[in-house]
């Protein structure tokens, strides 16, 4: 047996388990067990991360809003997710009499399946990817697109005006923001020449001076990363883009009529797809499982992936606690008039970056190509609009 290596410990564990069982079990069963050994850790780890994030989010939002957050269950309230889970399991499952029973039942299931499937192509460490598809990135977006249909199914089958309005908003928003999301990843595909997430991570190995060769440290990569994260936020229906479930307008949007464990499934799917899309952002722009400095290579690759993931999660919680919700027209205008032109221009910037020789001129030209349109477009869209601090005449 090979010496234990902290970086490959999980891969070695799997091989060791398989070699242990190889003598006892027939080959077809062994193949099934090998598949299960790849799938079960993904489900367990990310479901645990879901539990951790719910408590982190509630505590963090509490701090931002100047209150304590959950602090009764367990030490400092950290067992709150367990209490929530048990509560969801033992609650009565209510289905409206007018609801379309079959579609109503199928919707949360159809929503969770793609949310879990996309993890198949995410490299969460060196040699740690369930399936190394040649077209992995395409798989990610293709499977992710199925969740729009599930959201629609949930909203339509509930026979509730709030649910239907929420579903319509959600689908319109997801379709709109999918375009900048995919366009911002296309620049990475263009420059690496591959659709495989594993090869995209490998393309970001190495260091240029102090900074690692991650794409986020190039002008086009930085712009792409920001566009990607904003679109990811909108795809995940999180504040400031949480109009589909805006509680002050639509009760809970498309899952108004869900209760008990089905409701929990909606939450699970939402957070799982948030982790998945953050993981994709890490893979595409933040160097995947690579360490930021050569001196830190002794830390295992999977630890880097999860540290980056936690960092992005904190960013998402912070955004949620800071920004107010947009209006529908603002949301659509932002996607079509601002994000889309910038994403298209970013493709051009990436091409310029590819064909110019390395050096300061390349940085200056590409930086100008990113910053110029940003400032001009922003100023242009704000022109003629009266944007100023709101003055309350009587409330002060």
């Amino acid at each position, binding site marked *: 047996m090979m010496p234990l290596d902290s970086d490959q410990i999980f891969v070695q564990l799997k091989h060791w388990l398989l070699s242990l069982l190889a003598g006892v079990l027939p080959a077809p069963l062994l193949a099934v067990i090998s598949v299960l050994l790849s799938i079960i850790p993904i489900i367990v780890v990310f479901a645990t991360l879901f539990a951790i994030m719910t408590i982190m989010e509630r505590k963090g939002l509490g701090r931002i809003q100047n209150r304590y957050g959950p602090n009764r269950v367990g030490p400092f309230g950290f067992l709150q997710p367990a209490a929530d889970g048990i509560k969801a399991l033992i609650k009565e499952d209510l289905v409206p009499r007018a609801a379309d029973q079959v579609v109503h039942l199928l919707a949360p299931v159809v929503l969770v399946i793609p949310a879990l499937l996309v993890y198949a192509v995410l490299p969460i460490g060196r040699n740690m990817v369930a399936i190394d598809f040649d077209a992995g990135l395409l798989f990610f977006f*293709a499977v992710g697109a199925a969740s729009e249909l599930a959201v629609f199914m949930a909203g339509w089958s509930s026979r509730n005006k709030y649910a239907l309005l929420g579903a319509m908003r959600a689908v319109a928003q997801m379709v709109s923001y999918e375009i900048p999301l995919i366009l911002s990843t296309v620049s990475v595909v263009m420059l690496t020449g591959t659709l495989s997430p594993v090869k995209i991570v490998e393309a970001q190995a190495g260091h240029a001076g102090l900074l690692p060769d991650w794409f986020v440290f190039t002008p086009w990569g930085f712009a792409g990363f920001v566009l990607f994260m904003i679109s990811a936020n909108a795809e995940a229906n999180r504040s400031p883009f949480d109009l589909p479930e805006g509680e002050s307008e639509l009760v809970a949007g498309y899952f108004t009529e869900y209760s008990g464990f089905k409701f929990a499934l909606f939450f699970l799917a939402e957070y799982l797809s948030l982790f998945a899309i953050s993981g994709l952002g890490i893979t595409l722009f933040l160097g995947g499982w690579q360490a930021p400095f050569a001196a830190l290579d002794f830390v295992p690759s999977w630890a880097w992936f999860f540290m980056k993931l936690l960092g992005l999660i904190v960013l998402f919680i912070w955004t949620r606690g800071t920004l107010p919700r947009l209006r529908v027209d603002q949301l659509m*205008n932002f996607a079509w008039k601002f994000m*889309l032109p910038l994403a298209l221009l970013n493709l051009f910037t990436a091409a310029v970056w590819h064909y110019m020789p390395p050096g300061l001129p390349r940085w200056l030209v590409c930086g100008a190509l990113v910053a110029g349109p940003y400032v001009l477009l922003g100023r242009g869209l704000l022109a003629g609009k009266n944007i100023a601090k709101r003055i309350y005449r009587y409330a002060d």
Partner: protein
Amino acid sequence: MSLPFLIIAVITIAAAAAAMTLRNLIHCALAVAGAFVGLAAAYLNLSAQFVGFAQVLVYVGAVAILIVFAALLTRGGEPSQAAVFSPPWFAGLGVTLAVLGVLVWAVIRSFLIRRELVPAPEAAVKQIGDALMHKYVLPLEVVGLLLTAALIGAVIIALKEERKK
């Protein structure tokens, strides 16, 4: 025929049949989406990854949503009470049989059926990309231009705002 193919075929045909016979228009649209997924699975079963993923991305992600929205925005919520099979169903049956006959005739006479089986080509994404960028670059560029023009056109239509006085 292999077992995976049989499973996929049964699911796809069942979904397609449901899309034709169900009364509720939204149910039909969802069944069509199911049939699209089945087709994608059939492509994947033939190890045509790129086509399979593109099928899901385009048909389930976009076309099914479009159908559902169109159905929702144009009709009332209640399903129609008319019979599923319209009265001249025997004429439809005749047309169906005629089409089936032509298809069977074409398939049997096709030279593809007599050709010797070549080993499955390695249709990697890279090769598809190479083919698109060299042999079929002109159609690709034309389609790209058309789609970009449509996209920019949509933005320009959306940009027009009526100035309030």
